[in-house]
């Protein structure tokens, strides 16, 4: 067990080189990220913190390939994601990444179970239903699988989102303010769940947060200030 985790840690999963993002608005160029570089090893948990407007969400979006940078490279498992086209990145996400968002982003017309099954179905998996049921059981929602998002509380919705993120057993899990829309008690349960699953499945976790308590639980904190990396501990 110990040996395997060491061997996992030794491998770089995310590599960021000279990443820059600028926007031009009404003729004024605004740089949101200034040539950032860092690496994340397999199985690590990393918090990206910083005040509003520091560029942390932009960074996360770039790591996920949801947005394109002005300059620089992001490699996932050694693959330069911006050398792929939009559909290539989508396929890469489907295979390697799970997402948890501040606003949950469950599809309103699907039940909890169907939401969790969706990524597996997109990958063409056979046992989508049983796998989704088992992970919903794991997040403590075994009794609410047939409910629609609007019938679930915020905490429950976020647990469904977590189940959806883990169901494909991704190598990398990206979370954007996962507790941002939840009260502190509910937020705490969600965080417990996130870290528990992270440990159980050996997933690499990158999360963006305001919540210092949450950040402290991560193995490493990347501090962003005005688009630059301040401390890399």
């Amino acid at each position, binding site marked *: 067990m110990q040996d395997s985790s060491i061997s996992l840690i030794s491998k770089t999963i995310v590599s960021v080189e000279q990443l820059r993002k600028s926007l031009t608005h009404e003729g004024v160029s605004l740089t949101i990220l200034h040539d950032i570089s860092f690496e994340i090893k397999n199985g690590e948990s990393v918090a990206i913190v910083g005040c509003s407007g520091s560029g942390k969400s932009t960074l996360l979006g770039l790591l996920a390939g949801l947005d394109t940078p002005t300059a620089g490279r992001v490699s996932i498992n050694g693959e330069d994601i911006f050398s792929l086209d939009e559909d290539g990145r*989508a396929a890469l996400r489907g295979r390697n990444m799970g997402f948890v968002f501040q606003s949950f982003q469950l599809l309103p017309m*699907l039940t909890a179970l169907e939401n969790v099954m969706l990524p597996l179905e997109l990958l063409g998996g056979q046992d989508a239903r049983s796998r989704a049921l088992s992970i919903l059981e794991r997040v403590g929602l075994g009794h609410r699988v047939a409910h629609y998002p609007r019938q679930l509380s915020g905490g429950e919705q976020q647990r469904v989102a977590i189940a959806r993120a883990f169901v494909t057993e991704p190598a990398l899990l990206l979370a954007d303010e996962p507790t941002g829309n939840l009260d502190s008690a509910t937020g705490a349960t969600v965080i417990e769940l996130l870290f528990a699953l992270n440990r159980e499945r050996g997933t690499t976790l990158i999360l963006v947060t305001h919540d210092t308590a949450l950040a402290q639980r991560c193995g490493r904190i990347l501090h962003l200030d005005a688009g630059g990396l301040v401390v890399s501990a």
Partner: protein
Amino acid sequence: MRLALRLLVREWRAGELRLLFGALLVAIAAITTVSFFTNRVQLALNTQTNQLLAADLVLIADHPIAAAFSHRAETAGLRLAQTLAFPSMVVQGQRNQFVEVKAVSRAYPLRGDLNISKVLFGQGEVQANGPVPGTAWADVRLMQLMGLQVGDEITLGQARLKLGAVIDREPDRAGDFFNIAPRLMIHIDDIPRTQLIQPGSRIGYRLLIAGDEKPVAAFRAWATQHLGRGERIEGIGDARPEIRAAMERAQRYLGLAALVSAILAAVAVALAGRQYLARHLDSCAVLRCLGASQATLFRLYVVQFVLLGLSASLLGGLVGLGGQAFLAEMLRGRIVADLPAPSLWPLVEGTFIGLLLLLAFVLPPLLHLIRVPTLRVMRRDMGPPQQRGILAYALAALLVAAVLIYRAGEINLGMYVLGGLLGVVLTGSLFAWMLLLLLAGLRRHARGVWFYGLANVARRRAASLTQILGFALGLMALLLLTLVRNDLLTSWQSALPIDAPNRFLINIQPNQLPALRQFFQQEKLPAPKFYPMIRGRLVMINDRPVRAEDYAEDRTKRLVEREFNLSWAEQARKDYEIKAGRWWRVTDAQDQFSVEEGLAKALNIHLGDRLVYDIAGTQVNGRVTSLRKVAWDSMQVNFFVIAPPALLQKQPGNYITSFHLPIGQEAVLNDMLRQFPNFTVIDVAAIIHDVRLIMERVSDAVSFVFLFTLLAGLVVLYAAVLATRNERLYEAAVMRTLGARSRQLAAAQWIEFATLGILSGVLAASGASFSTWVLAEQVLHLPYTFNAWVWVIGVVGGAIGITAAGLMATRSVLRVPPLGVLRALQ
């Protein structure tokens, strides 16, 4: 594919598809109901009008008709009957009477029934066939003239026949308008016994044909090519122009109704599709985030839409089938005794149109949708990508246009209405945009609820614009249908008022006029107007002799060969419509003619031409100074050519009049004929009755189709409001969270919907007025009357309808706690 199906089932369960499905369903149900129904009504009306011909088609000849024709018709599975008609003398004892004999075969009449009685003025009975061999039937006039009783023996030529019944009504009798002699009807097998058919006898032979529409049309096409000398073929349209005009207008109207139902369907589907895609923007972003490629997304949605479209269209088609059956049941006996069974074609057609409309309206936006920035999952303010792909939209527009033109069943009608729609969309966009700008300015000065109401309209200009246009198009289509329907009904009603003349009196000598006037006075009948009638042959146009062989059309040839009825008058009658030139004044030169425009066209006569008439050996000439339009179906006395009094007054002639004889006063005619034995009475009461019946039934059909389309339109308006319901709910919830009271919210919504309604109404009314004008002038050939009510109805109806539909669709805003709404729409 399987995933698409699963997603479709899931979305269906979640109620996500209800609006789109519902809109499609209603749209297709409306289309197919109207299709099915108009299809059946048209079939029924054709059958009904053909009763006036006693057949669907008649082959007419002045000699026995070649067996080839009947052989051909029989092999095509058509039903046949023969008649022949000739003038002869009936003898009973010392009395004899000149009659028009009609000998009919067993199958006569093929369409319609004979009405006969056993005693004069007795209780009539319906008879499907004519007299059996050895018997004869006489019409009321013959019975009266000869004092006959049913059961009497009469002699016709060499044959003795027993009088079997009195004919009250003969379906195709109306065809011979100036048939003067009374009728005697016998069986065709008795003809040899009469020995009346001799070489040189003037006999009209008719071959009556009836059957299904297609074989009849095919037979007509074949027969037309094989007609010999003295043979012609007539359908109802040829025989009865007044019926043809009414039927053509009715068919165009039904086409218009079909078109409007398709427009409503298109609007409904477009609005619902837009809402569906807007709601799926987030889903698309999430799916992309979860690793779906654009191609996967496109496939997923297209498969879903096709499945959805197919099922909704099929179901809508079935609802339509049920709907029309219900309509038909309601109309049983009102339109026609029995509507023929509908063909299943409208079901196929409806399904196809539904699918086409859905894909046309949904695919282009879908192409944008799947390019949604994936980053939207993190930043909700990232909207859909910029609208691109003009080509996809142009293609969709073309498809929809093709569907609409196809629905209209006539290029002209379709093009005019499409033009109107396009006009409304273009000018409407411009107009609405300017109005919205104005509103945006206004709201700065508005306070309180007015501010929020107007702000809602003005804030999302593009969204409001779409809604206004959607509403306006729906409203316009409905207004158009209403207007045209009214014009149609009015024109029919005014063509044949209840007291329209039903008897013509001809051969009145000038010196009998005072006595006849006195007679009318005594009988308490309104004094009729007497028209001088002078018979003359047109011999020259501009010094060029008029010869029948110079004209191509048979009808024109016949017209030239016979004598014209000319008349003179000082004043133009009120219903004369002068299309060119002007009516004469007393001070003018008196050598003038006013010519009916149809005749002028047929004979190639122009304003300023000099015409020469030969009247009893005297040549009379004059210049054409006006062209008149004459309403032939008004049952008034009409003349092709009229001159000022001075030109014709001196010529020998007699008088003609038409008058309305109330039902039950027929005995007056007998008194009149006793006092003035030289008169001839022509009875057109039966014709008028038939024409009016047909018009009434067509009006009924038109009204019912209209009502149903109207209903569909209202559902569409509701769907349109429902389409923006969620946005409204969300905004209202936010407002309430910020402390807005229910009353304020309600007032703001009220103002918003009413504003949308009024703007749509103004647009719709302008579009409808314009299109009606064009349609009346170009397609339906009706006089256009400006109708101020359109504006009132459009604006007030738009405001009330849209406000009501809007408030109904968003009433939950004021009931549901804001948190519930916020969470549900999160």
